[in-house]
């Protein structure tokens, strides 16, 4: 039972990666313009108006299997990012690189055990861990903000590990796409 969430996450991650690869390939096949054209457009047009080949667009937030994953889960009293969430960090960092005007709010949360104020600190640590991972992958700190809700916004209110593990999370919320 305990392994179920990481397992699901792993399956989703693999699915996400393959979908991402598929989307990338499809775009390349579709466009294939003469090599001189993209050079001209990138030098004359603003970046936001003409996405580069393979670059994410806001529509991908709803369709891309990796970008659609916006929750990162943590172990008890831990703020270390688990390896299975690295792929999600990669695709969201790429989105931030592709979309310099995008803004991402990282909402840190904790489970109900322990003190509420301490859990505010723990939620912030988790938010900071996700922020660091996104920056390590090329996201800009100016695009990222961290807010901790501690244990004040549970998604599940039963007092057991299955529920607690759902509440120990950072939610990725795009305030500008």
């Amino acid at each position, binding site marked *: 039972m305990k392994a179920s969430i990481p397992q699901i996450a792993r399956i989703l991650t693999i699915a996400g990666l393959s979908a991402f690869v598929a989307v990338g390939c499809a775009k390349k096949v579709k466009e294939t313009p003469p090599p001189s054209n993209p050079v001209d457009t990138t030098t004359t047009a603003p970046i936001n108006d003409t996405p580069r080949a393979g670059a994410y667009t806001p529509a991908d937030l709803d369709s891309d299997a990796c970008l659609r994953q916006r929750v990162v889960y943590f172990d008890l*009293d831990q703020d270390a990012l688990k390896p299975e969430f690295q792929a999600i960090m990669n695709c969201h960092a790429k989105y931030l690189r592709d979309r310099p005007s995008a803004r991402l709010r990282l909402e840190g949360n904790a489970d*109900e*055990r*322990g*003190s*509420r*104020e*301490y859990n*505010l*600190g*723990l939620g*912030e*640590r988790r938010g900071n861990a996700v922020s660091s991972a996104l920056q390590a992958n090329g996201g800009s700190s100016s695009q990222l903000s*961290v*807010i*901790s*809700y*501690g244990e*004040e*916004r*549970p*998604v599940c*209110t*039963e*007092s057991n590990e299955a529920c607690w593990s759902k509440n120990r999370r950072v939610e990725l919320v795009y305030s500008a796409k």
Partner: protein
Amino acid sequence: MWGRMRKNACRLLLPLLLLPACAALAQSRGGLEIDIIGGNAAALPIAVVPFGGDCGQTDVGGVVRADLGRSGQFRTLDPANLPERPTEGSAVAYPTWRMLKQDFLLVGRCVSSGGDYRTEYELFDVAKQQRLLGFALTAPGGAMRDVAHQISDAVYEKILGVRGAFWTRIAYVTSTGLGREAKYSLVVADADGFNPRTVVNSSEPLLSPSWSPDGHKLTYVSFEGGNSGIWIQDIATGSREKVTNFRGINGAPSFSPDGTRLAMTLSKGGNPDIYVMDLASKHLTQITNQFSIDTEATWSPDGNSLYFTSDRGGRPQVYQVSASGGSASRVTFDGSYNASPSLSFDGKKLATAQGAGNVYRIALMDRSTGSPRWSMLSPGSLDESPSFAPNGAMVLYAAREGRRGVLYAVSADGRVRQRLVLASGDVREPAWSPFRQK
């Protein structure tokens, strides 16, 4: 008929009132028992005779009886078992009360005149056949519960030599709904849960209410506006001020004993540290500077030092630091997790939320005799937010029952607990007020 009225009253009041309020109401009229858990064999037997005359809508004797029973220090006699019901000293027959093995006897009566009520009461020592107290209080009908709590305080202090804390208030946070749909309220009520009044409503989380030393203001954390911020609000007028709005966490506010400074947690420096704000100038002094979570500062009674939670040693423990900064020393060594320190008025007792594995209980560290002695005040398993009564005799805390939060008041010896349940939703973050000013 009487029973039906009582039931209806409770049903009407349920959405607004704490359940034990109804239980107490019922008990005071000779019906249901109050929700008290445990007992104290050493409790002093006292008979509180129903007050005579016209006390308006309030059963003054019943309120006093419930107060004294709740304290764990007294064992009260069921009014149904009273052979006599004297309402003044001249009608007291000592042999009757001695036969009932009562140490003390409280009688009283009210007289109404023009909307006000004059309440006279007398306390007797049964063995000594001596009157210990004889006083009168005058108040409007709406304040008769206040009168009753003040009588409880006087009886408590006369017999035990310790100031009573029945005529005080509690603040707490309630929430209904889940996740982004949740609604939060900050509520102030009498110490027995009666007269609840919502002072803040919000669709964003509210937490950590704390009283000003004069009892007129509350400071608390609100997420309104999208991030945590620290507010100070006047309870009577409702006027309020946002005192911090820094990037990151703005949390755990606590008034200094003289009311001029506010200790708080800010993470604007990158991680949560303790700061002290001078309220007149808004000048901030950073007290701790560590790569750890430092939070939940509370003042020593003399205002010279702060007790706070820090995980600088790995897991959360309570530390002490000078209120002007400097190096901190660790205070708690029992239990793998100690957080949310609350100090008694004399600084000798420290209550914490103590964790071991998945069990969190309220623990009490007593430093009045040499090396610290620990005792457990609550059974767990998810107890938090201890708050001492201003006389140090009881501790209020929050617990989980099923999917919701409830409050308990426990005597500082851990022997008697009383449960405060909201009809719907969660109750948490209790804070006991200072003594009220007469």
